[in-house]
């Protein structure tokens, strides 16, 4: 079922009967003498630099300070890429109690947990029968400085 409310750990885009999917986008090396290298010089574009998978990338606003030591603070904007398969150590957006939560994904011996960088904040462990959806992987944190 598409409904990711089953009583188990679900990965982003889990789809029964299908193996994990890598995004089909691939980078292409430009050969020598390609006219693209001669004429295609444009101003650097932040979209190209920070967004690898534009169709899978979303912005979210951070509320809270539990991830401050990962460089993610209250009010920051994060870029969330759903095309990346979550792995140990990634900062992820998880759905906990039907709300988005930003945490570090810790995978130890087949068990998963979501850890804040603030030691005072308890880690979230999926319990038996609890839902634990990973929505996407945070690739970039943006903060506006006062000017």
């Amino acid at each position, binding site marked *: 079922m598409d409904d990711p409310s089953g009583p188990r750990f679900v990965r982003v885009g889990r789809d029964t009967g299908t193996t994990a999917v890598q995004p089909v986008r691939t980078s292409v090396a430009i050969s020598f003498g390609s006219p693209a290298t001669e004429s295609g010089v444009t101003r650097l574009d932040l979209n190209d630099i920070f967004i690898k*998978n534009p*169709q*899978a990338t*979303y*912005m*979210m*606003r*951070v509320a809270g300070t539990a991830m401050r030591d990962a460089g993610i603070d209250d009010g920051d904007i994060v870029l969330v890429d759903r095309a990346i398969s979550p792995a140990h150590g990634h900062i992820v957006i998880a759905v906990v109690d039907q709300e988005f939560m930003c945490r570090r994904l810790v995978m130890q011996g087949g068990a998963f947990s979501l850890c804040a960088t603030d030691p005072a904040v308890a880690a979230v462990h999926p319990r038996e029968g609890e839902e634990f959806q990973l929505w996407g992987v945070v690739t970039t944190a943006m903060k506006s400085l006062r000017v």
Partner: protein
Amino acid sequence: MFALVDVNNMYVSCERVFKPSLIGRPVVVLSSNDGACIARSNEAKDLGVKMAQPWFEVRHLERTAGLIAQSANFELYGDMSSRMMALAAEYAPRQEIYSIDECFLDFEGVRGDLVDTGRHLRATVLQCTGLPTSVGFGPTKTLAKLANHVAKTEDRKPGTYPAHVARVCNFGNMSARELDDILGRTAVNSVWGVGPKTTARLNEGNIRTVRDLINADVATLRRQFNVLLEKTVLELRGTSCVEVDDAPAPNQQIMASRSFGEPATDLTALSEIVSGFTTRVAAKLRAQHSLAAAVRVFITTSPHRRQDAQHSPSVTMPLARPTSDTRALTAAALRALEGMFRPGHNYVKAGVMLMDLRDEGQAQGELDLFAEPGGPSEPATGAEATNARLMGAVDALNLRFGLGSVGLASGLQREQGAGRHAARQERRSPRYTTRLQEIATVKA
């Protein structure tokens, strides 16, 4: 071989991506003007909510069954659609976008197991956008659409068909016997373009299933019905003869879209194309006596030109006052285009889509509380009648001399702006992907 890819319950699925609490609950999306249910989750369908049913008729389910209503959020749906379409486009040499949530892919010349391709496409779209899709394959578009219906039905109501056709169904790799069995279990009104009236008459003639229709005598059908039904039967038998442009229009939206032979790189060329599309869809809109309250424009580069910088933006422009006026619609479409166009890209496809449709009659007598004072494109009621006559004349000329004979000078188009303020929508979700102030919040 063709594939038809479409998003299950598109509008509801978009809402669920950003509001996980809606998952597993009965949800409907209401049209912004009259509060009719224009999208239903499977749970809402199971409660008996009908398509286009007015909200007041099902409102009691809010208390008794936890039904949740959201107002339509066309900016969100438009952006999610362009993401899904761009991902799907990578899988086949040719893509034809049919509606906001459906596209045909043409796999001509592609080898390999198409069911695997379909599952891969489905998983990629689900992972990258959160939107669940169904994929149907068939040797004609009508068969691909029917295979899609079978894939979706078996996913929603397991046991209707063999389990292996759920979500992805390929009519092309089935034994004749299995295909015949499936067609014999499928009602004739599931066929693309066979509406309620035709269905009733077919049933009178004892044609109830798709199998019955395929086996019917084509000459008799042509006499009793029309050439369109004959074409449909030919398509069901495996002969391609329907173009997307001639195909029945999808519900609640009108669109024109095309790939160009030569890539377009400058705004002028794209403006001409987009103006032409808008003229076409506006004529269709007036022919069905409807008004549109939102215009969506998209342009895309080709994912198959790997050396090119890729850009496939789409913009949805809400209109302060629903209209069928070509000038107002074109002005909105061109503003959308100008906002998203980036120099230095080879655009190969564009499309214009009219959304948030309503009957002409419904708009009359509405007070426009949200119009910009003295704002353009919001003609007073007196001017409306003149515009209707002008547009009627434009349509008549185009009908007589061919579409595109009479267009609008772009100078005129640009004087008309589109309204900035969308109608008030109490239950509308934030525009998570198109407005910085409305992006989702994540707890940290």
